């Protein structure tokens, strides 16, 4: 749905001055919470995300336990104050879907056989929302899981491509997303280059889909470096705890 009044490009640049293949600014900090086994605070454009990981730990209720491996649970939640119009607390259908596909994006890298009968609980809280929250959540989740010492084949990185004013671009901001013609979040395991999540909502030709995929893959590779840096920074001076 394109609003004819809005123009999204001026002199080849987008509303916020970015080029079509540019990411919004990202800040990632690992190990920010004390009680959680692992945590991460992430900002991406206007998104503010807190991720916490507990586990591996005992599963309750017991019947959810798997005898030979750990299970992974993922809860994506938006705080009531995270959006312009207050969101009622609790999971809505959108959050349920996002939780499911995010869990599926992360599960395969966890070396689950090392912890039978336990659960790795991932909690994502969106404190401020600015389009692209599910990708931001996955990026924060991966860092929090590593921070918790969860054994994984590699990190998972996510990013979204989109389409505005007929142009395929990387990383839509909120204004672009509201009037955009397509939104395509993906998640990959940078170590192997494989895709663990892909969705498209909107209208795209096959060629536009391929263009978007390529842009999103490039975006993921950049974000991966930031995830690694955040973890290495946490122990750069070798000192744990207060900062």
């Amino acid at each position, binding site marked *: 749905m394109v609003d004819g009044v809005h123009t999204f490009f001026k002199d080849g640049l987008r509303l916020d001055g970015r080029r079509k293949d540019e990411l919004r600014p990202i800040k990632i900090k690992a190990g920010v919470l004390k009680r959680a086994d692992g945590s991460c605070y992430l900002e991406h454009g206007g998104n503010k995300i807190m991720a916490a990981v507990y586990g591996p730990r005992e599963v309750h209720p017991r019947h959810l336990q798997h005898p030979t491996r750990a299970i992974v649970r993922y809860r994506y939640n938006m705080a009531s104050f995270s959006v312009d119009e207050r969101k009622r607390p609790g999971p809505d259908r959108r959050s349920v879907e996002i939780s499911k596909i995010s869990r599926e994006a992360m599960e395969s890298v966890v070396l689950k056989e090392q912890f039978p009968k336990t659960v790795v609980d991932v909690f994502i809280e969106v404190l401020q929302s600015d389009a692209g929250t599910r990708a931001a959540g996955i990026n924060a989740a991966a860092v929090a899981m590593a921070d918790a010492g969860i054994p994984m084949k*590699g990190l998972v990185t996510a990013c979204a491509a989109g389409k505005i004013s007929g142009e395929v671009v990387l990383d839509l901001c909120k204004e672009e997303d509201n009037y955009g013609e397509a939104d395509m979040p993906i998640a990959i395991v*940078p*170590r192997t280059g494989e895709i663990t999540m892909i969705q498209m909502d909107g209208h795209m030709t096959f060629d536009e889909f391929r263009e978007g995929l390529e842009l999103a893959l490039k975006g993921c590779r950049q974000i991966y470096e930031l995830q690694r840096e955040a973890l290495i920074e946490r122990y750069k001076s070798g000192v744990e705890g207060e900062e």
Partner: protein
Amino acid sequence: MDAGKMPRIVVPGDLLSEEPAKVGEGAYIEDGKVYASVYGVLDKKDRIRVIPLAGKYIPKRGDTVIGSVTEISFSNWILDIASPYEAYLHISEYPRRIEPGEMSKYIRVGDLIVATVLDVDWSMMVELTLRENQFKVLRGGRLLEISHTRVPRLIGRGGSMISMIKRESRCSIFVGQNGRVWLQGKPENMKLAAQAIEMVVREAHTPGLTNRVVEFLRANR
């Protein structure tokens, strides 16, 4: 580790070697290459391994741990060993022959004991035994809980770090593999020892640590 060089921190998925090599914990081989599987410090001295910076304690046969009794059920004491898995101490593993009815006479719910991991089977059933140590219930001291990932550093090569702390703080200290540490001594000495241990935990992967800990202990005695 005190070689004066900053350690290399790696994250899961980092490439550690392009060629196959012997791997230890925290690393895995795929397509002939070695990758890190945990967030930690790279150690290439012998096998390629990554010493984790975080993570839960998973019991292994032979580990000596400090456990707290949470329940007495049939002929087992059930213990919390600071792990996602609880542990079982069967009555037959008590150093003397006792009757099931008398179990709480010897070890009560809430007691802290030192035990050795006898076996961990495929279903993560953890069995403990008391027959390998001088058994006693821990009382009249202080319990510290640290990340089990710091235990090797706290013990030090050949026990050097922990012996030094015991000596300089004049405390008896027992370090369980599961990250529980038992201190015994005069209150002010235990406080000193605890501070020294906290220092080791915080700065585990920095060079020159041993000297700094010795200096701290001597300055604050």
